[in-house]
């Protein structure tokens, strides 16, 4: 190992590594905290994924192989050692809900302390009543109320008797969540520790939403095998979930509809001519595509309209299902909200137009932002989850160091403790 690497390795845990193991590709985003506390992205790496279906491990051996390759290549390319990774979790088993709970303020003066907030949130999240095989992934605070007063974002320091908390909980099946980390830790044998496990849809939202966007936003991550969504209202995450439909379905639909046998060919056709709106002007347009047959090359011709119809049907249906789910719970608060599309499928022609018409809202591609650095290939919608993981870890670390206080406090604690 080079000297540079050896020097860097000393500080390796300063790097924040986001690992997004997707159905079609494995993406890593690497960032670090600048001296002034801001986040700077230093690199990224993408490799083709294997053994993953609909966001979950299907073939452990092949998945491990691909993940191991991603690690080695990233370490070599960037000259860093990966020690801690932030892991994205997804899968059709993930569900969420918003729950309320109450706690009595303990102090005599009635001043709300951090402990009361915890108690109220615990009481709320316990309402989720998860079964034996389900595990909580996130418990996020939404709003608080003191004795039925106006909603508060942070009640600490306010005076009152009973504190009501509303929390948003994201949970999943414990065994299926562990599957991926098991793959990482046991099988690869890499000396890798898992920092935070974050729901992919939440990570994507963190990456692309500016604080003012969070007043009303629907983030839809259209991935290769699974679609995640997160709904932000008045600054808080209010709804989230997954739907096991992704780009792989588009490819499959094209294969069935146009009689294409090789998957690669259908993928290429999707990239070349994929559009999700049926354009009247394209009615008689044709797409020719060289195909390797037994005896030399042969041109195959498809109607562009057919391709558009197949893709439109699929994406329209997918967005409609999401819309129905979201509107069923939050229809009244979504006025003026924006739909952000991330993930590889957000590049499809006409995707934002379709989203706009299905949701009847403004729609646009979600581009990861809120960090420094020249890493332009991180500012792409498909990198949202990986970047979001880094941002999550960054915020977490800042919060922890703030709680720990300045260095002399920590030193004092170390000495006296």
């Amino acid at each position, binding site marked *: 190992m080079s000297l540079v690497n050896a020097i860097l390795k000393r500080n390796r845990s300063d790097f924040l590594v986001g690992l997004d193991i997707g159905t079609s590709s494995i993406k890593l985003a690497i960032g670090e905290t600048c001296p002034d506390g801001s986040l700077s992205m230093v690199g990224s790496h993408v490799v083709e994924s294997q053994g993953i279906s*609909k966001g979950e491990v*299907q073939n452990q051996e092949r998945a491990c192989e691909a993940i191991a390759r991603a690690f080695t290549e990233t370490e070599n390319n960037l000259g860093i050692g990966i020690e801690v990774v932030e892991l994205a979790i997804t899968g059709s088993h993930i569900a969420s809900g918003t729950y309320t709970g109450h706690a009595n303020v303990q102090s005599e003066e009635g001043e709300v302390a951090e402990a009361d907030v915890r108690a109220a949130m615990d009481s709320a999240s316990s309402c989720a009543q998860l079964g034996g095989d389900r595990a909580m992934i996130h418990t996020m605070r939404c709003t608080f109320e003191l004795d039925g007063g106006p909603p508060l974002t942070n009640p600490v320091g306010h005076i009152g008797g009973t504190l009501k908390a509303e929390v948003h909980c994201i949970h999943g099946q414990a065994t299926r969540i562990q599957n991926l980390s098991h793959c990482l830790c046991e099988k690869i044998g890499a000396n890798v520790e898992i920092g935070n496990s974050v729901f992919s849809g939440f990570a994507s939202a963190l990456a692309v939403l500016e604080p003012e966007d969070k007043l009303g936003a629907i983030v839809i991550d259209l991935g290769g095998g699974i679609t995640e969504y997160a709904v932000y209202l008045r600054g808080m995450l209010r709804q989230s979930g997954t739907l096991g439909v992704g780009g792989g379905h588009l490819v*499959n639909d094209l294969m*069935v*509809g*146009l*009689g294409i046998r090789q998957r690669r060919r259908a993928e290429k056709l999707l990239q070349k001519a994929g559009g999700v709106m049926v354009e009247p002007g394209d009615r008689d347009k044709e797409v020719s595509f060289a195909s390797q047959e037994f005896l030399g090359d042969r041109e195959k011709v*498809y109607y562009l309209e*057919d391709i558009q119809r197949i893709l439109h*049907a699929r994406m329209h249906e997918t967005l409609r299902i999401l819309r129905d789910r979201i509107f069923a719970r939050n229809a009244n608060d979504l006025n003026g909200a924006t739909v952000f599309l991330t993930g590889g499928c957000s590049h499809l022609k006409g995707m934002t137009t379709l989203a706009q018409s299905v949701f009847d809202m403004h729609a646009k591609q979600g581009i990861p932002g809120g960090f420094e650095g020249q890493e332009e290939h991180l500012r792409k919608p498909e990198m949202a989850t990986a970047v979001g993981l880094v941002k999550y870890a960054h915020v977490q670390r800042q919060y922890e160091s703030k709680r720990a206080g300045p260095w002399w406090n920590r030193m004092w604690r170390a000495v006296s403790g």
Partner: protein
Amino acid sequence: MKPKNFMAGGEEASRPASARRAPSEKRVRIKVVGVGGAGVNAIDRLVEDGFDQVGLLALNTDAQALANCMVADKLQIGERITHGLGAGGDPDVGRQAALEDAEAIADAVRGYDLLFLAAGLGGGTGTGASAVVARTARDQGTLVLALVTLPFSHEGAYRDRVARGGLLALQDAADAVICIPNDKLYDLAGADASVQQGFAPTDAFLSGGVRKIWRMLGTTGLINIDFADLRAVLKRRGGETLVGFGDGEGPDKVEKALESALASPLLNDSETLQRAECALVAVTHGSDFKMAQFRELMKRVSEKFGPQTACKQGPIVDENFQDRISLLIVASTGKSVLPASGRAGARVADGEIQTSTLNPSSVSVPFTGKGKIRQGVLNLNEVFRGSFEGAERTVVDGEDLDLPTFIRRKIQLRQR
């Protein structure tokens, strides 16, 4: 006979699970909603017939029309937009009106298992608001069965187009839509019928249908037909729903009942019956009904269906039915005759009616584009599952989303 229960109970937040049948005496909660002028007229007929076992609701934009109707439970929508003056034949106004009062509608249809929606398509309120009402109810877990009429052919192409657009939106929103062209009803009433009499069969049909389904669900049969069966037949089939019923009395009661059931304007389409994928046949009879007669009846009914039709039979004993039987047939096809969204360039988004893209010929006449037409219908079981082979299926509302959408939506492609 075991105690019968169709619904798991009010505390069950969502859809009833047929597997879970607690022994209680809860009945299926039914609501009948009339939307727009024609819809409200239809439920007025139920009031006239003294049928008060179900919840009735009249829903209209027109305050005057609502004031004249006999139903106790009324809901005026879109006051802010229409000022109580009706939608003026504009389905967009009807839709906006319903969206404006979406909460009130949601409250009104909350807590029912089965919702009948009656409307006349072609006007403003019935065409525009129906889909919104249906969706609102379905989102709450209610099975929505819509009974709608299409305008007379003499009402012109515009109304027809509006109606077809509304029908597409409604098919998207409701679980099942039974659609009667007014022309057929006119044939039924006869050429000499007055204008008023010409509309009576619609009202009679709705009234009769509601009562018969109510009886089928509410009585314990020798072979049970329950809400779960009805749901299985109607639930989001994406095809046509056929309903017919008839009564018979005296020695040749079987003959009479069959005749009138099959002559019903919604069932006299033998070609569609042949294509039916599943059917429910409920026979209400007295204790004097002979097994041989029952078998004869079922044989005759089965003949009408195709070989692939899954037919569920349910004899229901009712002591009031001495020497009298009543027959109810509900059938559903897998194939849609009306174009699914996407075909003929029509898009139906959120119950929105895009009349401009829908021309009447594209609705009734199959797609006539350039190139060879390939019907997008494959045997679903043999469809290539590609990379989803072995993966957990993504099933939403009973639909396997791993199968290509264009096949499930019966969207036609031009070439291979």
